[in-house]
Structures are given as C-alpha cells and as structure tokens.
C-alpha cells in the first residue's frame, strides 16, 4: 500500500512539475489582439510615410478609419524612462541647492548639461520645498500680527 501511494505521489509530482514549466514558458496575446492589430495599422502608416514629418504622419494616423479606437500620438519613445521620480533617485546635493540657494543652484544644476535628469529634478524638489516653507512661514507670520 505504501509503495502504491509513493508511486502515486511521484506521478503527481512529475505531472505538476511539467505543467508548471509549460505554464512558465508560455504566453497568450489574445487579450491584447485589438490593440496589437491597431499598432500594426499605425506601423504600416509610419513605414509608408518615411519621408513625411511627424505632424504629417500623426495626421494620417488620426484620420485612419481602420483603427478600432483613437490613437494618442503624444508620448515619449520607449527608449526613455517613463518611470516617476522616486526618493531613491534623490540627489541631496542638488536638493540642497534648490532649498538653500536657488539662484546660484539654477546655474550649477539646471543649466549644467553634465548634470543628469535625477539631479535636476532633485533641485526642483528642493526649490518647491523652499517655496512651501517660505509661504507657510509668511502666512503664520501674518496671522500672528
């Protein structure tokens, strides 16, 4: 009896493992088939108008009757990060320039082409923090008088 149950367990494990691998390395694009066929239409318009300007291509895409829904042409290319700025990316030096010495920091950070985007965003976060602190202090000061 023990041997039979061990065999059954082994079979169950084998089938479970093969099923999980099949699931792991498979995919189904059926739920995005409409969006995919729309993108194929857009791709065709782009490839047929290689020498046109972006505005001309966008006009052709928007006026295309083969799309199932409207196509938003205003977006960044997929090579550029669309992720929102997070606290992990904060450059505290640039933040301090924005917070404590905004006019000088503007030239040190924002107009400096060697500074990366996260540093420039950190500067503006610092500047915004300074604006909020100053506004709150001013309102509290006026209310106290």
């Amino acid at each position, binding site marked *: 009896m023990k041997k039979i149950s061990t065999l059954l367990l082994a079979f169950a494990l084998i089938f479970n493992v*093969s099923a999980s*691998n099949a699931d*792991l*390395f498979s*995919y189904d*694009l059926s739920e*995005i088939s409409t*969006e*995919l066929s*729309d*993108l194929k239409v*857009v*791709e065709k318009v*782009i*490839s047929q108008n*290689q020498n046109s300007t*972006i505005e001309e*291509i966008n006009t052709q895409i928007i006026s295309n009757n083969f799309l199932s829904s409207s*196509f*938003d*042409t*205003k*977006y*960044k*290319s*997929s*090579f*550029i*990060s669309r992720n929102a700025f997070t606290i*992990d990316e904060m450059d505290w030096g640039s933040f301090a320039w924005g917070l404590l010495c905004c006019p000088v920091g503007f030239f040190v950070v924002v107009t400096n*082409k060697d500074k*990366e*985007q*996260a540093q420039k965003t950190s500067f503006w976060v610092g500047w915004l923090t300074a604006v909020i602190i100053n506004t709150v202090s001013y309102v509290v000061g006026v209310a106290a008088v």
Partner: protein
Amino acid sequence: MKFLRFIFFSLIFLTPLVHIGQKSYSRIEAEITIKEIDSTSRITTGKMYYDKNSGAMYYSINYPNREVVVYTDSMIYMLHDGKTIENYKSTNGLKFNIFNLVLNTQMEYYGLNSSSYELIKTKSDKDQIITTWEPKFKNKKYRSGKIIMSQKNKLIFGLVSFHPDGAIISKQFFEDYINIEGLMIPSKITQIALFKEKPEYKITTYKNIKVNNFDDQKHYSSEFYFSN
C-alpha cells in the same frame, strides 16, 4: 621527451590558426520596431547602430519623435538636433543588451554565466533545457530573485524573473531566430511585465540586421550625433 616537444610546437604554431578560423564581430545594426501595450498603446520605430569597441549604442528614432538616444555603460543620453536634452544614469548599462550579448557570444545563457547570478539547477523538459539562476550576493537595497531560463536547440527561448518573495515579475520570449553570418539573432522579443495590477506588454522586432558594416563610418561615430 619527443611527445612533450610535439605538444609544445603544436601549441605555438596551431593556436593562432584556431583564431584565424573564428570570425570576430564588433558592429551590428538593425531596424527596430517596439510595440507597447499597457493602459495605452504606443509604437516606437527607428534604427540601432552598435560598435562594441566604441562602447556606445545609437538609436536613431523615427517615431514618435525624431531624436537620438545614446546608451553607454553608465549613462543614457537623449539628443535633439545634436544637443543633449535629457540624461539618466543607466542601471544595467549595455551588459544585458541583446546586441551586446550577441556580439560577445553570450546569448546562450543571456550573459548570466558571467554576471552576479550563479547556476543552481539544470534539467531537461521535452525539447527544452531549463536552468535556474540565483543571485550570488544578497543586496538589501536592490533585492533580486531567481531567474529561470529555457533553451531550445541551444538558443535561449524564455526567461522568467522572480521577486525574492517568489512572485513572477516578468517573462521574456526570444523567437524567430535568423542566422546572420553565423550569428543566431532573435528577430522578435516579447516581454510581459507582471508586477503591476495589469500585465504590460512590449514586443520588439528587428529587421534588416547587418553585422560588421565597416562601409558606414558616419552612423557609428559620436561626432555625427553630438554636435555640441
């Protein structure tokens, strides 16, 4: 003694012949189309030029904007009319870029065998070889989980990345391989990100792939892209 002398001379005179037989590849270019579907649908088209000796990959984008994006090991630059508009720190650099892996003949294991991952388990399943990779070091800030890879006919087919808690983060599939001068290159890569509420899809296709195009010096030089 005679045998040792034979081995010695064979090593000296025959080893260079082995290298002569192997063709080295340093340049690759391709037309790229990326289709992305999440809450919206987007398409990006353009051309990519990469010379591994220069360490820079240039994407000349046709749509949605005419611009150039440059990937180096440490930075990503976005250029418009030769001027840098934005720049970002690159997290992975070019290390796991498909074309870098192809030129360095590291596609078989997707570069994982020379990375901070180590091979834990190998098993065969029908027509696939399944390997499991785990991070060698546990980084508290950037926690990464295991990766399970599937190979068919010695070519990478699927790559599944896991969160340390065991949940699947993303799946990648490498299909429609084409042989370009002996290099096997997937012309279609499907990525499915599963860490958000709804899956996000990214389908990349490559056309007109050329290797070692030394006739074109313009598109491989930084001077052509950076005018400032």
